[in-house]
């Protein structure tokens, strides 16, 4: 186990004294001849509630999520959760360690009801309390409080009770998203990765989503990482932003810093911020 942060000394901001919740060091991913990610490093600190990763299409954002959730093994680099090295952990164990995610679009199990979608996940892993105590549960047996956690998760996203017995094809986009989020938070995760949660929502729904995410981040005491294309949404919600481009980390900073960064403008708009048209 490596210490995640060398800044172990006391500083004015107490958050730096503890290891970051989730840290990625020099993650590189190569598929055959394609380099999807190149030496990407980021740290999600205890003080960060909601952070965001942005970048043009193909920048590697989903690949990064895939690395963080164990779908893809990085060619180089390491990943640490609370200071423990979890690089290369199997997918089904990552969920149990407290890292959850949603997917681009909607990927729910169409032959299971809403509630079954959520309990499938919640039964597979222990809740936060048990996790902290070091208890693990094999994916087969039902975690004792699985059903309660599922119910709580669905309540937290305000999923109407009436539709919990329905199957995904009958749901609206909003409710489908809510089910996805409920499924992901049923493990009481420490880190929740959301892949384009606002896609397809109208402005009213986006506002609702924003409020929901902020509320959740306080209620559940976890850390949200949001990948999004809607800049307004990102700027209004994130405390820290990382910008990826062509698999590399282009910039990292607060929303104001990112907005002012000429390199970010160039990446998105193809021209420096102050260039004459």
């Amino acid at each position, binding site marked *: 186990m490596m210490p995640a942060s060398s800044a172990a000394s006391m500083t004015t901001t107490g958050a730096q004294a503890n290891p970051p919740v989730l840290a990625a060091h020099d993650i590189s991913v190569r598929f055959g001849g394609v380099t999807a990610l190149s030496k990407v490093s980021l740290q999600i600190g205890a003080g960060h509630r909601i952070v965001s990763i942005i970048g043009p299409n193909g920048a590697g954002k989903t690949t990064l999520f895939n690395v963080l*959730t*164990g*779908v893809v093994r990085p060619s180089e680099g390491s990943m640490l959760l609370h200071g423990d090295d979890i690089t290369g952990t*199997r*997918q*089904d164990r*990552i*969920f*149990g360690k407290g890292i959850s*995610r949603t*997917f681009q679009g909607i*990927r729910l*199990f*169409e*032959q*299971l*009801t809403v509630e*079954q979608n959520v*309990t*499938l*996940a919640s*039964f*597979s*892993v222990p809740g936060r309390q048990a996790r902290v105590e070091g208890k693990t549960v*094999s*994916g*087969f*047996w*039902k975690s004792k409080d699985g059903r309660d956690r599922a119910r709580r998760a669905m309540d937290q996203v305000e999923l109407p009770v*009436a*539709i919990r*017995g*329905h*199957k995904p*094809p*009958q*749901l*609206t986009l*909003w*409710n489908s998203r809510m089910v996805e989020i409920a*499924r992901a938070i049923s*493990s009481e995760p420490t880190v929740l990765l959301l892949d384009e949660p606002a896609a397809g929502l109208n402005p009213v729904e986006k506002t609702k989503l924003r409020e929901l995410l902020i509320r959740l981040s306080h209620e559940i005491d976890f850390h949200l990482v949001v990948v999004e294309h809607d800049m307004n949404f990102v700027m209004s919600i994130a405390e820290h932003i990382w910008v990826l481009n062509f698999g590399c980390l282009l910039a990292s900073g607060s929303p104001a810093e990112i907005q002012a960064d000429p390199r970010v403008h160039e990446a998105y708009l193809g021209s420096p911020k102050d260039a004459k048209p």
Partner: protein
Amino acid sequence: MFSSSVQSFLTVQCIMMIAALGHYLPLSMRQLDVGIAGYFALGAYTSAILTRNFGVAFPLALAAGALVAGAGALLIDSLATRVRLSGFAYAIFSLAFAESLRIVLNNNDYVSGSLGFVGIASDTTLGVAAGLLAVIIVLFWLLDHSRLGQLRTAIADDEFITPQFGVPVVATKLIIFTMGGALGGLAGGLYAHYIVFLQPDDFGFAMLIALQLPIVFGGLDRFYGALLGTALLACLAEVTRDLGQFRLVFTAGATLLMLIWRPTGLLTHDTIDAISAGVKRWISLPTGVSRSRQKPETP
């Protein structure tokens, strides 16, 4: 109660349906474990040897046959999963095992090879076969509603994301496939004690095709499809029995036509949902599924 030829037909069909359910399990998870004829053979020979040569009681011998077959399936599927065989390679792999077994049996004197294993007690009756089938159907229904069944449905639905939610995919598959093999072995044991004559060549491609086509015809979404497909095509073939040897032609022709017209097979998730919603409405139970599938509920 029934005439003896009808009894004979029904008994054989019950046995075939048990085997069909065994073959259905891996197919429903999109895994081409086509070794079912081999599992069948394992069960048949194991149980026959036990009752004939060692005087073991019939039920025990059946169980032993199922166990051996299940172990065989576990072995094959573990090996295939370890090297992560693609779908088609999986089929070749399992088929190679089944065919190897057949050749070994053909040349083995202990089981009288291709001369045929005789002298088996005729312990399987219609009652036994039908009774076991009924129990198995109930178990399947229970499985669908159990945790293991949910895992199975989720994996069959979207295998890629299931591990992300803590589901141990490989272990689940192995358990299901072992159950499939065991069912094949059970059917084999029943078969051995009904036909009372075993020849390894009976457990080759012909048996595989006879089992596989009807379940794909019936639909792979739910196990009812496997049952219906097997029953329907058997009855169809039987009705035309006087015309002679058209059984396979009918099965193949019907399957081909069905799949061209309706590639998902006869019974799909939607069909079953619609039927069960209709039934529930008819006996006035609240339905979990809303009638108008097109209209989303108001947000």
